[in-house]
Every structure is written in C-alpha cells, then in structure tokens.
C-alpha cells in the first residue's frame, strides 16, 4: 500500500505550488490548511468545481 505522507509540520499556510493537483492522503490528513490550499489550487487550475447552491 502506498500512502504519501507530506512533511508539512508546523506550517499554517501552504504554498499551492508545493502540492499536487490531485492531492494526496497526506494532504487530507493534514486537515483544514492542506484542504483549503488544495481547493485554491483546484480553483486556479480549473480542474474541478464545487457546485453548492447556497
């Protein structure tokens, strides 16, 4: 089994250039900061959109 761990310890902001556009489990495990950075990256990359009509 391959689980990618990402060395992000102690960081409060993640540079989107540090993360892959398809994300990773390590990034998800990192929690809100990693997730928000990934969403931002996706937005820039326009690879995906969340359709939430609120």
């Amino acid at each position: 089994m391959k689980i990618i761990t990402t060395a992000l310890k102690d960081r409060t902001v993640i540079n989107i250039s540090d993360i892959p556009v398809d994300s990773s489990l390590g990034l998800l495990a990192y929690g809100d900061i990693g997730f928000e950075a990934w969403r931002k990256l996706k937005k820039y990359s326009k690879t995906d959109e969340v359709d939430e009509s609120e």
Partner: protein
Amino acid sequence: MSQNKLLLIGWDAADWKIIGPLLANGQMPTLKKMIDNGVYGNMSTMNPPYSPMLWSSVATGKTPDKHGVLGFIEVMENNDGVRPVTTTSRKARALWNIFHNQGLKSNLVGWWPSFPAEPINGVIISDKFQKVSKDPKRQKPMPKGTIHPKELETEFKDLRMFPHEVTSEHVLPFIPKAIKIDQEKDKGLMAFAKILSENVSVHNAATKLLRTTEWDFMAVYYDLIDHFCHSYMKFYPPKLANVSQEQFEIYNEAVIGAYRFQDMMLERTMELVDDDTTVIVMSDHGFESESKRIVEMPKVQAAAAMDHRQFGMFVATGPNIKKKEKVYGLGLIDIAPTILHHFNLPIGEDMDGKVALDIFNTIKEVKYIPSWENVEGDFAELNSKRDMDKFSDDETMEQLIELGYVERSDEKIQNAVQKTKCDLKHNLARVHLGKKNYNQAIDILLELIQEKEPIDITPYYMDLVNISLELEDFDQAQLYLNDLKKQKTTIKYALFFSESSILLGQGFPLKALKILEIAQSNNRYNNPELWYKIGTIKHQLCNYEEAKDAYNQAVMIEPDKAKYHVAIAENMVALGEYEEAVDSALTSIELVKYFSKAHYILGTALEKIGDFRNSKIAFETAARLTPKTFHRAERAIENLEEIIAHPSVFKDKGSSKYRKEQIVVVSGLPRSGTSLMMQMLHKGGLDILTDENRKPDQSNPKGYFEYDPVMSLHKDNTWLHLAKDKTVKVVAPLLKFLDPKYRYKVIFMNRELTEVVKSQQKMIGRDPETLPMKLFDAYAKQLHKIENWKDKEPGVELIYLNYKDVLEHTKESVDKVISFIGIEMDKEAMANCVDKSLYRNKA
C-alpha cells in the same frame, strides 16, 4: 493537581485485532507513540452495540434507558415520519452541558448525535455538518442548527469535502486495483468516496478548531473505521469462502488503509495539542475480523451491528496518565465519570459508570453529587419543540440503509413510524436485559408481542426465551419458543441453542447434547459457541476427555474468548491435569482480567498442586470481583486458611470442626439407610428439619424424617436458611442444588449397590432378584457425580458411612458421625436406634 485540557477522540469500531499487527509493522506510528507514553486496554461495550446509543453513553456516563437515545433513527414530531437520531432524543446532560454550566469551554465535532447543535460555551460542529449529497448538483444548504455558534457557518462550510472531489490519489492507497472495478455493477467506490469525504470534513473542522480556538474539553468523532469495516471487512484476509477472488483482490487492503489513514489524521491532531493536554483515543466496540464475519446480513433491525465485537480499544496519554501500562476493566460507560473527575468535578450518583482511577498517576479523591440532572442553572440545553425546525435527511438515511444499520423504510409513512417505534421499544427492552432488569424487559416485550403486521414479532419472542433461560424458568422458555415457531418470519434463527438449553435445564442433558451435535454436523461453518456448549454438556456428564476435545475446537476457532479457556481449565481440574488447568486459567485472566470464575478455577487448580498461598490469593480475587455472590470462593478461602495454619487438620473433605450455622445433610441413594441416620441424629440431640408429612410405613417403620420443600430444591433453595444448625435429608441427585453460601456437613449413606437396588425393587413390589441393569448403572453414575460435586464445592464436607457398618459396627460409626459433626451428642441414644432386624436385603 491542576486540571489540564482534555481531547477525546472517537474511532468508531476500532479493534485491537487489526491494530496489533499494524503497530508491530510500524504502520500506526502515532498510536504506537501514544501507547508508549500512556495507558492502553480493552474498552468493553454495552448491548445492544448500536453506535448512537453507545456514544451517548460515552457522553453522559449513563445507560440508554436513562439518556434516551435508543437507536439510529427517531420518530419525527406528530408522527410525520422518521429521520436519523438527533440531540432531541437525548434526555440526560452530556459532558459539554455540564462543562457549560461550570464555566468550561468545549468544542465538539461530528459527535453522534449532536444535531441540532446545543448553544454551549464553545463550538459544536454537529454530525449534520459532514453529510452532503453524493450528487454535486443536489447540494442543499446546511440545515439550521448544524453549527453553533451560527456565525461560524460561513467559515466552516467550505471545509466540507464532497464525494466527487475524491481523486485517484486518495483512492489508490486503499484500493490499489480500483481500475478493475466495473462501476456500473459495483458501487463500492461511491461508498468509499462518501465515507472518506465525510471523515475528511470532520477532520478539517477539528484541525481548524484545534488551531484557532481556546478550549478546555474537545471531542471529535470519526466513523471512518466503522464504515470501512461494514463495507470492506468481508474482503479482509483471510479470504472468506463466499467472497469472489476478484472482489477479494480489489478490496482486501481497504480496512488496513482506513486504520493507517486514521493514524495519519491522529499524527496531525497530536501536532496541534501541547504536551500538557490529556488525549484519549477510544472506540465504542470492536469489529469481527475472523471467521465470525457475516457476508450476507439477515433482515433484522440494525443487522450490521451483528458484526460488532464486545471489546473496543482505549489509549490515553497526558501529564497525569501512567506510562506504558495496560489497564483493565474499562467500559465506555466509565468515560464520562473519568473525564468529570479529570476536571475535578463531581460524578452524578445516578451515572452508571465509575472513574477509571487506574489510568491516573496521582489519584484524587472522587467527589459525588446525587445527580447533575437536578442541578439548577444554565446547561445550554435545547428545548426540542422550540429549537428544532422540521427537516428531512434522505441522504443520511440512505447511507444508514446502505451500511445495513437501518432497513429501507416502508413506502407507507405510518408503517415506517410504527416499525421505528417498535424498534426503539425493543432496544430499550434489550438495554434492560443487558442490565439484568428482567422484569422491565419482560413488560416491554409482552407489549411488543401484541403488535400486528407488518411488524415481525419473533425477535421479541426470542428475547423472552432468552430471559426465561436466564431466570432458569425452562418451562416458560419452552412456551415462548413454541409461540415463536407459530409466527411468520423471514428471519432464520439458530433455535437449537435455545432448544438444547431448555432441555438441559429440564434435566435432559443427553437430548440437549444430541440437538447440538446434529446442529454441528449440519453446520457449514465451525461455530465456536456450538463447540463450547457441546463441551459444557459433556463436562456435566463427566465425559471430560470428550469435553476437552469440544472446548479445544472452540478455542481453535476463536482463541481469544476468555470463557472458553476457563472451561478448559475447569475441565482440566476434573481430569486431574492441574498444571494445564493453571495455564488455561491464566490465559483467560490475560484476556479478561476481572473474570471472577477464571480466578476461582485458578485457585482450585493451585490448591490441587499444593500452592496454597497463591491459591488463596486467587480465591480472594474471585471473591472480591463478585463479593455478593461468590460464596464458593469465600468457603474455599476459609478452607485454605485452615490448611495453611494447620496442614494436618483437613483431610478427605471432612474435619471434626463445628462450623457456625452448619447444615447437617443426610443423603444417599434410596434405601441406603438415610432414615436410620436421621433417626440417630435426632436421638443424638440434633434438631431435625422435617414436616412429618410422610408417615412411617412397613419399609420405614420408624419414619422418614423428610421435608417436602427438599423435593423442589432444584427450583427453590431459598428456604435453606431454616436448616441452619439443623439436620435435613436430601436425596443424592439434588445435592448439587444446595446454595453454596452455607456450610454443609454431609453424611452420605453408602450401601452395596446390589443391596440398594434389591431393596428398592422390593419396596415398589417387584422381584428383588431381578436386577434392572439400567437402574444399577444410573446409581453408579450418581455416586461418581457425588464425588465430583464434593471435590468442587468448598462449602461442603462429606463423609461416607456404610449402612452395613452402621448395623455391624455401630459404636465406631456413631463415633465417626459425632466427630464429623463437631458437637457433643448422646452416643447411647444414637446406638439404640439401630435395629438389625431391618437389614433385610443383603446382597
């Protein structure tokens, strides 16, 4: 000791059986680090093991009959329909309500149930937060009450991950061969995406709160492991026979993946708390991962929970937590009292749990109040009618249905409402059953069996059968079982267990055994419980070698079941293999430390080996664990104290010591001189317990000295206190029903078996020269059983007295009896009772 922050992390269904190998292989490094720096142990669950009920017990320290959360779903106001269970079902105050009242700040994420969020001092991200639609185009706004305080909704809503956002990078570590999945036929990936995204949403909210808020208590609940196990445990190695090779190869790493990902999330969580924080990771139950896995669930309510195992896991670290120690005897009901104690707050006396003092380095005095429910003030509770809008939650219901927790609702709303009401009442009955409140459980079940179509009432009958068995009312159990068989049902019950238990209780062990052996030969899979029951009956029948084989089969299938090892130990004692008995008893204790019977059998085996001091410790432990009921252990301790103090006094289960309030029992096979002995003791000066209902006759011209209640001793032995310091006659087969709480001096009248049978033949008007061999064999077996019973019962001293010796060597016999009873008696009067003319049936 000042209070520090406490973080409680719930891993639904996490199980040491999976965690153990992962720790050994370095695949759960964060949990390993916690264990190395803290305490760990089993976490005992409650019945029925349904997660919303269990996590509510974790939060309240109370059983579901008190906290009110009784299932996965609840009936909506005005009986409009059913929906996933909400906070409004909970009737007891949770930890966060108490902390709010006490000025402490709590954060809560994903707790089941926590919607609608209560207005506490702190933040609640309720269990509604992570529930989004699988279809990206059908997303609805978060319902009111999803997050408290409401102002945080905007900040947190974008932390929710949606199933369609899951990428191959997320999937492949769990399912490396995902490319092979035909997604038209196999919806496994869709379930995966939903479970993963929901847990990531919870984790995102938790990490944000950990980073950005001040708190005293925080609790986070993940259902990742539970939901992965329900979806993929059937593919976990070793491969089950009825799982296809293709499916096995695709999904066999999914469960391991869930545990490893959970550990990765824990790593991040631990980075966000300081060393002064106490952290608890626990599960509410385990999950079957071996031969007992169920591939096709039966259609009963909450069938999926049949995969839940009795023991979950517990790990804790913190400044006042012991290091590298295993702790025993923890139950999830203990968590709330333990956390209150951590914060120097009193425990409600109406809580069912206790403070787990064993986990702490420095132990503070535990404080109590009668109940937190009666404390006046602001507890941030919801008024269910005022604070909750009507809502439907089809997506969550759909997920519960997919996981097997909830049956697909009937199209008719009223039927769904009726079924849900019945399920909730049934769960309440089962809670009472688990607490041994049998009368409350029976009342509810008797109401439920009045239900009509479409309700299947057989589960209620099944519980009534089981309660009757617990109460040893075997005739009533039979009646309920007969009624059950008359009902229409699609459920396939293994009724042979109940049938054999009833027969056994009614005194037909051979018939009971036959039913189980037929079931065993018909069974496609090896069922350890079946082997165990077979072993138990064989043990009772004194077929110890065959019992050993059966128990070994049970242990081979399920090696970590403590009761199987205890059964082996008890059987080894009967076989005279005492060292092996010690080994098995110790194995059992290793599995469940606070298992009183295991300590008792250990004590018995050690006593036989001659290790009296350790034997005494084992008996003392057994007695301490069940102080109100374990009279055998108390008697055994008294015996050992005598052996240790005066090694020569105690021989052959008979001493000359008078035991306070001892009961002298005269027993023996029929026609072996028991009435003569009763007469001798009476004349010698002992009080006799008799009602004189049976009058003297030609067979016993001087009387029988019987007492009618003796004949129903197997049903009712509560009258035995009347026999204290008296003498009572008890026929041999009923000796085993004597209450172990008393001390007995048993004079067992012996007579050459041929003489016994001849005398009895004559008494019932048959030819005394024709010996029925069956009767002869039965008596021989009976005598053998008496030997075993005498050895097993520490409260029993027993001497054999031969009828012929009493007649021919009266003086010696009288001396032996008086010495055994331990008090002064009238020897001459006793000897004068002997009338040799009555000795008429010599062999």
